[in-house]
């Protein structure tokens, strides 16, 4: 892992991109890293495009600006590819992960000529299979951890189990489904 990894999330209001960014900050923190997790705030509306950010570093993080040249971009909603320049500033040696049921070959032409690595994952299918409902943020979180290598799989899964146990204390029945979604996403992002 590089000294500092910068990640930009693109999602739509209500899909949990902000929550995913905060969860990633949380698990990275648990592994001893310095972290930042923050959304870009504006008028909050269900379905409106939103952006969230992560910095994960070996050293104290002082910069407080948004991220303009990310190492990784996570696109939680495929329809954003039509309206948002999701790969703007994305480093060539980095990668973009798109939530889609399409093949990689069909997505690449929609990425504004981005020359770096492109990953796809069908977070909808995973979420429906594991949880019975569509919550894309857990699968996308596993996907970015796998692609970026900010931590190993075992550490990630252990930390997430602890995090879910805390988050879903009042409805523990959903923990296993979410853990399954993470496992599937880790395997299926490609």
């Amino acid at each position, binding site marked *: 892992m590089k000294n500092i990894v910068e990640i930009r999330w693109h999602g739509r209001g209500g899909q949990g991109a902000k929550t995913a960014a905060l969860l990633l900050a949380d698990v990275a923190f648990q592994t001893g890293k310095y*972290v930042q*997790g*923050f*959304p870009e*705030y504006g008028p909050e509306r269900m379905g409106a495009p939103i952006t969230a950010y992560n910095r994960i570093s070996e050293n*104290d993080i*002082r*910069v*407080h*600006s948004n991220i303009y040249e990310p190492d990784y971009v996570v696109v939680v909603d495929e329809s954003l590819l039509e309206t948002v320049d999701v790969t703007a500033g994305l480093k060539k040696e980095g990668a973009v992960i798109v939530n889609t049921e399409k093949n990689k070959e069909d997505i690449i032409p929609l990425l504004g000529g981005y020359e770096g690595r492109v990953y796809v994952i069908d977070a909808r299918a995973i979420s429906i299979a594991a949880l019975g409902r569509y919550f894309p943020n857990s699968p996308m979180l596993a996907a970015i951890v796998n692609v970026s290598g900010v931590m190993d799989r075992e550490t990630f899964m252990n930390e997430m189990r602890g995090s879910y146990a805390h988050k879903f204390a009042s409805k523990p029945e959903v923990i296993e489904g979410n853990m399954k979604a993470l496992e599937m996403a880790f395997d299926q992002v490609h």
Partner: protein
Amino acid sequence: MAKRDRLSGNEAVAEALRQINPDVMPAFPITPSTEIPQYFSKYCADGKVDTEFIPVESEHSAMSAAIGAESAGARTVSATSSAGMAYMWEELYLASANRLPLALALVNRALSGPININCDHSDSMGARDAGWIQLYAETNQEAYDNMVQAYRIAEHKDVRLPIMICQDGFITSHAVQNIMLMDDAEVKGFVGEYEPEHSLLKDTMAVGPYSVSNYYMEARRAQMEALRNAKAVVKAVGEEFGELTGRKYGWFEEYCMEDAEVAIVIIGSAAGTAKDAVDRLRKEGKKVGLIKVRMFRPFPGTEIAEALKNVKAVGLMDRTESFNDCCGPLGAEVTAALFRAKKQCEMINWVYGLGGRDVRVEDIEKVFADLYDAVENGTNDTYRYLGVRE
């Protein structure tokens, strides 16, 4: 034992308040400070504190209730932002004139209009002459630490003035970042019990009487003395806090100032971004430095002028528009301080970051480049905007 954690700035301030366990919190919600009373009222409901939480119907009432509670001898806190503070305006002046050491957690947000919810300092900078002590934070850590120190400063017998604990809206208030928390007993021991010398509940006394012209000016002069006293107390409390936690605080922080040729003076979260810019330029061999102002009221003008005595140019960074076509509030203070110290150098005042306009490392590098240009060629263009579209 200190505890390593990760919290947003709002969570951090709410956590500090849980540890302080004040007597009364009247508050009315407003973005981006809403989370502070939101988290804190949950602590009240869960019995983690025994604070009387008063859900008032407006900020005007919040500050009025805070004044009443503090006069009665209760350690009191409120939280607000932007228009909420504007609606407290009348009471801000009463809180300080009545010498009530209450605390206000202010999450800086632009004043409308155009209506905007994001960060700049127009709310607290507008209230800079309201007689309050003002401390600003670069990070969630500093917001937490300042909150823990607040009552030690405000309630000191030589001071007894209200204190504003400011942090940048969204930028630190809503960003989760690493933080070191003190343990509860440590905070409790540091802050101590509040034992007011006088209060409505135990003394026969009148609070806030009318003062005719023959008294008013003396009353203001006496109030100034208290604010002047706050200076030494802020320093002493910051040093004691440093001995306890390893994080020492003063009036301002000097970063790479020892041999700096050009420097900027800045407040709040953008100081962190600017430190990265300083590091980049230092690697290129440029002798640049930075002063981050923590205490804006009272203003440590003489000491800042001393810290700037060797620079050839200084950039004065204001995150608010003063609408005086001359300078921002920080610019005005530093310029005046340098003039009084008979120090002449190139001075450029930048207005930046209004309404949440992002500040990048590259933006600050441009500021330093412009300062070097001014050293080389001089400039009459001393009032500028950073990152505005022309």
